[in-house]
C-alpha cells in the first residue's frame, strides 16, 4: 500500500486484549506490536520490557581519564564493563547482593539468547508464558505476584545504587554522566568535528549536548536549543558540571530554527516522542500514552525535522533519533521528509549492531533507503527501544 502519513490504529483482537491485560498495556499497543513483530517476537519484546536496561555511564573525558575514574569508582565498590562500540561507555556489573534479589529462574538458567555486543538473556522466562491458554493468568497469578515483588525489591536496590552513583564526588565533579547506551549513539554517529558548528535542537537535560562537546574536545560551537524554560535549568547544570565550554544555551522553540539563519554543519535532533521505547525503565508508559499522542508527536517531529532540513547548510548532516519504537515517529517521519525534500538522502552508518529500519510495516511500503536507518530493541540489543537515522542535504 502507498505511504500515508497517518497512525496505524488497528482493531483489537482477543489475543492482543488478553496479553495487554496480563502485562498491563493498552490493547492498541500490543496489537501494533503483533503487527510489527509477529506473536512470538511480541512475547519476547514484552518480556524484555519487564527487565530493567543495563545501567551505563559515560566517562566525561573533558574532566578525567577513564582509567582513573573507573579505578576510583572501583574503590567505592562499583565494577564496570567497558562497551566495545562507544568509547568511554561502561555498564555497571551487578554485585551478588543485587543478583540475589533477581528471581532464580531468570538467572540460573544455562539457556541464553546470544545477542550482538555480548549481551545475553535467558530464554527460560521467555518460554514460560503460553498465551494460547486462557487459564494462564489465573494459574500463575501467585507466582507472578511474588516475582513482581522480588523484582520491585531489585529495582529498589538498583535505584539505590543509581542514586548513590548520582551523588559521588566524581559525579558532582562531572567526571561521568549517567546515560543509557542507546542514547549515546546519535551523538557518536553524528561524529562532530572540532571545527564544526552543531545545533542540538531539543537539548534538555543535556546528555547528548555534553557528549557532543566531549566528542568535539570543547572546540567548535554548539547551540543547545530548548523551548521549555523549566528544562533549561537542568540543561545548564549538566553543561556546567561537565566542564563544557563550547556551548550556548538558547531558549528557542526548535521548530523555528530555520528562521534564525544559523546554517550549521550538523544538527542533532533527538525529537520529543511518546517514549514507547522507555517502558522497561518507566513502566508507567504502558498506559500513559494513547494513539492520539502518536498522531500529535509525529506531526511535531516532522515539523522539527523540516526546520532542521531548512536550516542545515548544503552538505550538512542531521541525526534524527527518538526513544520510541512506533514506526510513525520514526520511519514515517523520515519518509515524509524524503518525499518533501528531494535534496535529502539517508547516509549509511558503520553500525552492524542495530537492526535496519522498516521498509514494510503496517502494510505500507516505504523507501528502501530506510534500511540505512537503525533500530535498537530491548529483546535483541538489551537497550531501551531506540531509532536513529543520519540524513544529509546534498550540495
Amino acid at each position, binding site marked *: 500500500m502507498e505511504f500515508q502519513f497517518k497512525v496505524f490504529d488497528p482493531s483489537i483482537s482477543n489475543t492482543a486484549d488478553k496479553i495487554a491485560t496480563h502485562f498491563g498495556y493498552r490493547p492498541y499497543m500490543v496489537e501494533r506490536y503483533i503487527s510489527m513483530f509477529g506473536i512470538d517476537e511480541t512475547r519476547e519484546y514484552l518480556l524484555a520490557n519487564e527487565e530493567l536496561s543495563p545501567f551505563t555511564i559515560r566517562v566525561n573525558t573533558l574532566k578525567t581519564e577513564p582509567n582513573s575514574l573507573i579505578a576510583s569508582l572501583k574503590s567505592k565498590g562499583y565494577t564496570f564493563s567497558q562497551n566495545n562500540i562507544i568509547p568511554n561507555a561502561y555498564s555497571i556489573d551487578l554485585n551478588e547482593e543485587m543478583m540475589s534479589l533477581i528471581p532464580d529462574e531468570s538467572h540460573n538458567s544455562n539457556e541464553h539468547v546470544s545477542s550482538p555486543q555480548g549481551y545475553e538473556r535467558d530464554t527460560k522466562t521467555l518460554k514460560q508464558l503460553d498465551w494460547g491458554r486462557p487459564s494462564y493468568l489465573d494459574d500463575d497469578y501467585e507466582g507472578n505476584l511474588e516475582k513482581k515483588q522480588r523484582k520491585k525489591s531489585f529495582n529498589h536496590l538498583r535505584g539505590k545504587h543509581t542514586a548513590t552513583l548520582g551523588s559521588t*564526588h566524581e559525579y558532582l565533579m562531572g567526571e561521568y554522566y549517567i546515560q543509557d547506551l542507546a542514547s549515546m549513539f546519535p551523538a557518536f554517529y553524528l561524529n562532530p568535528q572540532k571545527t564544526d558548528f552543531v545545533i542540538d535542537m531539543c537539548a534538555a537535560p543535556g546528555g547528548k549536548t555534553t557528549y557532543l562537546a566531549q566528542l568535539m574536545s570543547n572546540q567548535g560551537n554548539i547551540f543547545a536549543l530548548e523551548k521549555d524554560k523549566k528544562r533549561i*535549568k*537542568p540543561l545548564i*547544570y549538566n553543561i556546567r558540571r561537565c566542564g563544557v*565550554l*563550547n556551548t*550556548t544555551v*538558547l531558549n528557542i522553540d526548535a521548530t523555528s530554527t530555520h528562521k534564525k539563519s*544559523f546554517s550549521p554543519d550538523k544538527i542533532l535532533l533527538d525529537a520529543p516522542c511518546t517514549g514507547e521505547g522507555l517502558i522497561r525503565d518507566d513502566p508507567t508508559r504502558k498506559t500513559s500514552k494513547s494513539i492520539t499522542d502518536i498522531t500529535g508527536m509525529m506531526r511535531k517531529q516532522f515539523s522539527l525535522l523540516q526546520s532542521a532540513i531548512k536550516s542545515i547548510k548544503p552538505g550538512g548532516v542531521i541525526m534524527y533519533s527518538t526513544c520510541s519504537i512506533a514506526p510513525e515517529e520514526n520511519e514515517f517521519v523520515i519518509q515524509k521528509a524524503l518525499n518533501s525534500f528531494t535534496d535529502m538522502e539517508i547516509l549509511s552508518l558503520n553500525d552492524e549492531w542495530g537492526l535496519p529500519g522498516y521498509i514494510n510495516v503496517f502494510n505500507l511500503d516505504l523507501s528502501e533507503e530506510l534500511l540505512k536507518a537503525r533500530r535498537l530493541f530491548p529483546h535483541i540489543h538489551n537497550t531501551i527501544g531506540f531509532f536513529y537515522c543520519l540524513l544529509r542535504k546534498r550540495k
Partner: protein
Amino acid sequence: MSSNPEFHLATKNQLQHIKDGLNKISPQIWSCLGDESINIYVRYNKFAEIYLVPTQMERKLRLIRDLKCIKHTGLYFGFLKGIEFLLSLEGAEFILNTCKKKKNIPIAVITVSEDASKSFLYGNSLKPEQFIHSPNSLNRKDVFFVFNPHNRFIGIGYIYKRQDQTELRNLVDYGYYIRRGF
C-alpha cells in the same frame, strides 16, 4: 552587541570589580586570564552573571539576534552582586586549571578532614580544628579554595570571625546542585 542591555561584553567598571574580586584569591589570576583566548561577557538575570567566552565562539554568538534567549554561554565564571564579584565553582575550577599550567601562581587553599568535607558538601561551615592544612594566619573575609583529604576541590569558603570564634563559611560547594534538586 554591547548596545543590547540583556547580554554584552563586560564594561570597564565591571571588569574592575571582577579584577578586585579575583585579587582577593590571588593577585596573579587576572593577568593569567589575559593570556587566555577569551572575552568576558555579562548576562543580566537576578544579578549580573559573568561568562568567559572563547574567542572561537564569538562569531557564532553574533548570529543570535534576540539576545534575551541566551541563557548560558561559554563558562559561567561567577556573578556581580553590586560591586562584589563572587566566583562560581566552574570559575574556580578554571582558575585551578589555569594555575596548574602556570605553576608559580599561589592560591589560598584549605584542606579539610574526610568528615569535614562531607559536612561542607552539605553546605555547612567548618571549624579550624577540622582543617588538615591551612595558612598560619586566617584573616576575616579571606577567600579559600577548599579541598578534601584526597586533594580534590570541593568548594569555596571564606573566613568568618566574631570575638574568639573563627569559621570557614561555605560560599559554594559541589553538593549545591543536588541540594537544589535538579
